[in-house]
């Protein structure tokens, strides 16, 4: 297992280098003179254009620019916002935990609800329960998270006054309040994710339960609980793990609307502001962070595969 992990880690190095170059090269995607474009186009103030050019080091050669940028990134310096003069690293260090809390909680909730629902549906395919869950998951997938979030706020925060409507409390300040402020966003994001997961688990379980070794186990008198829990679920979890990993990565980059509705100061709102003002260092910093997390999420998924299916470890 150790060798498997080491192989996977070594394989990440060229991938991370490629990602870093792609993120750096975002500056090349800006048509014309990037400094002038960021400063406001043809009518931009010349001093401001030169200021941006100096800040981004655009007068140097491309390789030199990349080398300097990469060196800074490796030492944790993601640059400074062109508009607020705040360190990107510093901003991300306060905003990333917010988005991470959102994504992790939603995915955890999705797994907590989606996996058991999928297993239940698979155990009785075609039954009333299975059909009801099918309708329910369709509804859950179709329901927009911002609509659900707003509805839950009205019910639980406004009418019942039992949960907060806005704001974020860091976990180190109060774990209970941290959770209270996030429970509605978690549900809003988790419903769709759990519905998708439930369907995935159901499909995989039905396929596994139809295998010969399951039939053999049942014929040998193994209890249904053991058949499901020890034999079938482990093998059906492989695609589910992929879905969970993808959902987590998607949530990291796609929670802007929920962050806005609940006034959560996460990466989503930070990124949106950067995109509209062409704040390149911020865009690069956020994209790089999300890309790196995506890569390591895939690594974790691969490792879990290895645990679930030892045959994978030798490939």
């Amino acid at each position, binding site marked *: 297992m150790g060798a498997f992990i080491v192989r996977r880690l070594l394989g990440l190095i060229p991938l991370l280098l490629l990602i870093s170059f792609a993120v750096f090269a975002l500056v090349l995607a800006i048509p014309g003179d990037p400094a002038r474009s960021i400063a406001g186009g043809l009518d931009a103030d010349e001093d401001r254009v030169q200021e941006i050019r100096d800040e981004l080091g655009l007068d140097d050669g491309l390789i030199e620019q990349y080398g300097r940028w990469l060196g800074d990134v490796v030492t944790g310096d993601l640059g400074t916002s062109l508009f607020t003069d705040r360190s990107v690293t510093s901003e991300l260090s306060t905003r990333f935990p917010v988005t991470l809390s959102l994504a992790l909680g939603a995915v955890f909730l999705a797994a907590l609800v989606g996996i058991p629902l999928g297993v239940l549906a698979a155990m009785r395919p075609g039954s009333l329960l299975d059909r009801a869950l099918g309708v329910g998951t369709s509804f859950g997938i179709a329901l927009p998270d911002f609509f659900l979030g707003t509805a839950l706020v009205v019910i639980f925060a406004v009418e019942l006054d039992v949960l907060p409507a806005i704001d974020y409390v860091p976990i180190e300040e109060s774990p209970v309040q941290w959770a209270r402020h996030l429970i509605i966003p978690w549900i809003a994001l988790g419903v769709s994710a759990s519905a998708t997961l439930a369907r995935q688990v159901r499909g995989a379980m039905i396929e596994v339960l139809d295998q010969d070794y399951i039939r053999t186990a049942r014929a040998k008198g193994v209890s249904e609980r053991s058949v499901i829990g020890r034999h079938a679920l482990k093998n059906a979890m492989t695609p589910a793990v992929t879905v969970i990993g993808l959902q987590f990565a998607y949530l990291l980059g796609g929670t802007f609307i929920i962050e806005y509705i609940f006034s959560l100061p996460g990466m989503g709102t930070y990124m949106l502001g950067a995109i509209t*003002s062409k704040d390149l260092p911020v865009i690069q910093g956020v994209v790089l962070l999300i890309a790196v997390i995506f890569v390591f999420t895939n690594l974790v998924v691969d490792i879990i595969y290895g645990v679930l299916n030892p045959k994978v470890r030798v490939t």
Partner: protein
Amino acid sequence: MVLLLGLASCGGGESDGDAIRYGFDFELNLNDTFDPRASLSTCDRLALEWIYGTLTTLDENGQPAPGLAESWVLDDAAGTFTLTLREGLEFQDGTPFDAEAVAAGLTYLSTGEQSREDLKNFVSAEAVDDVTVQINLDGPGFGLPYGLALRGGMIPAPGTYDVDNPDDSEAATDPIGAGPFEFVSFQPGEEIKLARFDDYGGPLEYEFDELELRSVGVGNPAVNALRAGELDVIGYESESQNVIDEDSSLSSNSRLGEVYAQLQLRLDEPFDDVLIRQAVNHAIDRQRFIDVVKNGVGEVAWMPYPEASPNYNPAVAGLYPYDPARARELLAQAGVPDGFEFDMAIPGGVTDQERQGELIQDMLADVGITANIVPLGTDIATEYYLQKTGDAFSAARPASAEPVGAVEAQWAEFEFVAIHNMAERADITALIEQAKVAPTDEERAQIIQQAVAIVVQDALEVPIAFVPRNVAWDSDRLAGDIGAPSEICDPVDLEGVSIK
């Protein structure tokens, strides 16, 4: 469900204490700097004004009134504007708010990209004595009393800025002013905490100890947070009026000022033809706009000033009544009988603005004009004006502090908006300059009316409706009446408000 119930029972944590919690959208309004010189958004005033106060203020009628300065004298002939400060004022760090500090502060502010716009014709400032500041001008000083009520009159404490190195100022992150509230802390995107400055010597009086400015999204998020008791005061759009009226724990106020919904035109193709501009004016049903977008509250706008304004020109009111047939005739005369297409920029993420844009799009479609809606981000100045995103801009035009501002900013030469809209007019500029040196308010108003006549007759814009600014508050928690702001970027008036 168990988790939900468990967490729900762990109530509290939203300690109110002695703080009034005022919510607005930081992403939309604030530029993340506390330095008035570095501020690139007029709406930074929502935070800065509490900390710095201003040298002058504007009264209910929009007229200059004493602030941290108790009086002033303008001498256009001598090219001087002399301020007399209140005695005994201090900055929040204990340093004297005296003439020397104010003169240095004004010199610093005169170098800011936007703050200098509030200090028109400023050349230099000097301390005559401890409380007297003489500002030297190279043009009319008419606008100064208005500008000193804005960022141009927000004086940072000496030591928080370096005139030789303005970009390295501490004021951006650790502001010290002479306003009624001291800066305590700032969580970007979350909240700004302020504490009452007990030695504040200005004209405003507050009856609460702490003020928390909290970031909350426009519309439903803000209204829900207010109803849930997590905010005490919010501004809101007209679409939320019914919800607020139905909640007995909330009170609200509205104020019709000089903010008006407008389709601002870039006078380049296709709007370089006066016939087309007049056609667009005739295509807009202004009363329907008020009924649909503003819940029936508002006043039809025929020009940049409301009827109650001395600058209102009755001779050109109603020049473009709603008349789709006439609009089509004008389009035919302009050589586009089948209409044309253009990009209409709108502020993105603001429900009211989206409704406005959609309604305008719908009305123009009736006469064959296709308006493609292009939502802008938070940096409107860069996107619409500098990057020329869109051929026209549907939004709410902020009120201007000084009487000539509404016309000057949009059509006078060398003004930012006029330049980037290709809308500079020498004839309007000449009238504005005359208005600035007019000996009486009446004569000034008459001259401005002449400029307004040009604006309307040449259809340089499409004014739609004067819209109310609204404020709602938790009257179960707060005592007192809260005045609605007159302008988009004005903070709410919390004088006389206390926590029950």
